[in-house]
C-alpha cells in the first residue's frame, strides 16, 4: 500500500539510491543489454543493476495482490470480514456472556444497557449479542468448510474431466446438469432430511456435496480450451507427463476463477445454511447459528430485535464477501495489467 508513483509501474524501477548500486560500483557496458531486441531477464537485471537501477521482478501473483489492495470496496469488505469473523473466531473472548447463560430477570428484553444486553435477550433470557457472535462462528465453520472442500473436489474432478474427456467428462456433465436443472433448495432439503439435522459439520458436508459441481464445470471449461494450446503440446513434446501438464501447466490458469468462486461460495453456503436451519432441516438447537436465530424470531413477532440482528449479520457477511469476491475477480484477471489507482 505504501508504493506510489513510479514504483507501481509494470516492471517498475525504484528511484536509484546508493544502496542499489552494483557491488563493484563500476558501470557495465549498457550495450550488453540492448544487443538483443528483447533482453533476457538475467541480462536485463544485470544491466539495470549496473546502471544503478533496481529491477523489481513481479510475478503474476504480486500484480494480483497489488490490484486487490487498491480495490477500495474489496478493502472495505475485507475489513468487515476481519471484524465479523474475528469476533466469531475469538467468540469465547469477545462474547460478553456464554451463549447459553440465562438471565431470568431480563427475559425478552429489547436492546438495553441493563446487564449490557446490547442486542437484547431471547425468551429464556440468553444474551442475544453473545448468541449472534457464537452463531457467526458456526456460520464461518460452515462457509469455510464448504468453500475449501467444494473447491478441492471441484478442481480435481473438473481437471480430470476436462483433460481426459470421454466417459468421466460425460458423467460429470450429466451430474452438473442434474444439479442445475433441479429445484436446488428442495433437493438440499431432502438430502438434509436424511443426513443433516444436527451439527454444522453434517450440514456443511451436504452443502459441499452440491457446491463442487459449479467449480468443476468452470475448471473443466478452462482445461478443455487449454489442452489444445501450443504450449501444452510443446510440454508434451518435451516429455512432460499428464500429471505434470495438468498440475504445472494448466491448473494455475484455473486458480483465478476457482478462488473467486470459492470466496463467493462462503457467502452462498452461509445463506443456504441459514435457510435450511430456518426451515428446520439445518443446525439444531442449542448450537446457535445465524439461520436458527433468525427463525427463532418468528415465534415472537413483537420482539423485532430477535429477527433483525442475526439477519443483519448475514447481510453484512454476504455483502463483504461479495465485495471481496468482486475485488478478487478484477485482481486475478491476467488480462488486466493495470494496477488500479
Amino acid at each position: 500500500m505504501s508504493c506510489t508513483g513510479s514504483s507501481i509501474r509494470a516492471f517498475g524501477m525504484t528511484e536509484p539510491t546508493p544502496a542499489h548500486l552494483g557491488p563493484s560500483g563500476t558501470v557495465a557496458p549498457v550495450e550488453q543489454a540492448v544487443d538483443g531486441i528483447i533482453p533476457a531477464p538475467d541480462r536485463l537485471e544485470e544491466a539495470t543493476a549496473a546502471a544503478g537501477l533496481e529491477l523489481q521482478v513481479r510475478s503474476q501473483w504480486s500484480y494480483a495482490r497489488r490490484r486487490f489492495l487498491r480495490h477500495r470496496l474489496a478493502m472495505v469488505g475485507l475489513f468487515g470480514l476481519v471484524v465479523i469473523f474475528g469476533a466469531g473466531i475469538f467468540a469465547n473472548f469477545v462474547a460478553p456472556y456464554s451463549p447459553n447463560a440465562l438471565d431470568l430477570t431480563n427475559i425478552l428484553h429489547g436492546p438495553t444497557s441493563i446487564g449490557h444486553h446490547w442486542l437484547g435477550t431471547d425468551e429464556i433470557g440468553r444474551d442475544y449479542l453473545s448468541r449472534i457472535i457464537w452463531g457467526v462462528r458456526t456460520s464461518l465453520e460452515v462457509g469455510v468448510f464448504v468453500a475449501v472442500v467444494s473447491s478441492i473436489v471441484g478442481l480435481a474432478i473438473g481437471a480430470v474431466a476436462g483433460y481426459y474427456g470421454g466417459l468421466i467428462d460425460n458423467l460429470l456433465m450429466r451430474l452438473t446438469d442434474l444439479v442445475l436443472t433441479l429445484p436446488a433448495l428442495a433437493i438440499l432439503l431432502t438430502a438434509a432430511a436424511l443426513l443433516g439435522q444436527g451439527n454444522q459439520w453434517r450440514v456443511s458436508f451436504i452443502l459441499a456435496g452440491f457446491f463442487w459441481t459449479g467449480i468443476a464445470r468452470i475448471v473443466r471449461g478452462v482445461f478443455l480450451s487449454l489442452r489444445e494450446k501450443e504450449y501444452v503440446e510443446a510440454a508434451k513434446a518435451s516429455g512432460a507427463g499428464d500429471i505434470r501438464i495438468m498440475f504445472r501447466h494448466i491448473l494455475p490458469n484455473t486458480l483465478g476463477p476457482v478462488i473467486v468462486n470459492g470466496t463467493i461460495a462462503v457467502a452462498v453456503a452461509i445463506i443456504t445454511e441459514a435457510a435450511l436451519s430456518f426451515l428446520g432441516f439445518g443446525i439444531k438447537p442449542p448450537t446457535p447459528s445465524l439461520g436458527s436465530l433468525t427463525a427463532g424470531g418468528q415465534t415472537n413477532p413483537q420482539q423485532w430485535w430477535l429477527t433483525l440482528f442475526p439477519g443483519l449479520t448475514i447481510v453484512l457477511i454476504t455483502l463483504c464477501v461479495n465485495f471481496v469476491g468482486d475485488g478478487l475477480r478484477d485482481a486475478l484477471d491476467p488480462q488486466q495489467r493495470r494496477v488500479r489507482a
Partner: protein
Amino acid sequence: MLTYIARRILYSIPVLFLSTFLSFIFVSYAGNPLGALRANPRVSQHTLQLVAHHNHLDKPVVIRYFYWLQEVFTHKLGNSLLTFQPIWPDVTRTIGHTAQVIVISESLAILLGVAVGIFSAIKQYSVFDYTFTSLSFLGFAMPTFWLGLLLQILFVDIYLHWNVRIFYTSGLNSPGTTATWSIDRLQHIALPVVTLCVVSFALYSRYMRASMLDVINSDYVRTARAKGLPEWRVITRHVVRNALIPVVTVAALNLGGLLGGAIVTETIFSLDGFGYYFINSLQNSDLYAVMAYLVVTSIIIIVFNLVADVLYGFLDPRIRYD
C-alpha cells in the same frame, strides 16, 4: 430446430429418472411415513403391517422405487402415504396459488428491473445509477426469509399498534372467502410477492444494466448515432431490444431459485402453495408427496430452460441449433 427440441427432451429423461431415484432413496431413509400411524395407540400391529404391505413399504427401497413409478404413471402421482388421499388434487390446488404469487412478483421484477437497468446504463455513474446499484448489491445479500420475516413483523406490529390492516401476514384468504382475484386475496399475497420480487429485481436490474452497457458501446450503435437518429430512437430501437436478449435467459434460469424462494416465503406466510406443501410433506416423511413435488418442479424447470433456449434462438438469429 425440431430435432434440437426432441434431443433436449430425450436427454432430460434419464436426468429425471436418476434424480428421482436418488431423492427417493434419500427420502425413504429419512423417516417412516407410517410414523404417525404407529404412534396412534388404537392402531394394532396387524393393521400397521397390512398398511405397510399394501403400500409396498415392506419391500427393499429399490423395488419400491419401481412401485412408485407405476403409481406415478397409472394414478397421477399416487396417494399420500400419510392421509391416503390422492396427491393430484393437492398438487393442482397448491401449484395454482404458487403460480399466482410467482407470476405477479416476476412480472413486477422484470418490469422494474428492466426499467431501472435501462436508466442506470443511460445515466451511468449518476446518483440514480449508484443508488440502484447499491440497492441491488443489498438485494443480493439479503436472505429471502429474513426479508419476509421483517415484513411480517412490521405489518403485524402496525396492526397491533394502530389496528390498521394494510396487508395480511398469513394465509391466502380471509375466512369465508375463496376468490382467486379479489382485494382480499391481493392483501394476503402482497407481502409474499414483495419478498420474492426483491431478489429477482436485484438480479434483473443488474443484468439489464450490464447488458445495456455492452450494447451501447458496440459499433452498430455508433453507426445508428452517426446516421443522425435521435438518441431516444437509438436507445429504444437499437440498444434496448438487443440488450433484452440475455435477460430472457437469466429470467428462465432464475426459475429454480424462485421455486426455492417460494418454499421459504410460503412457509413464513403460511400460504397454501406448492412449496409449503413440500415442506409439510417432508417434515411428515410423506414420501410420495415429496416425490410429487420434486418431479413436477423438475419438469417445470426443464421445460422453462428449453423454452428459454428456443426463444433465444428466435431473438438472436446468430444462434444456430444443429
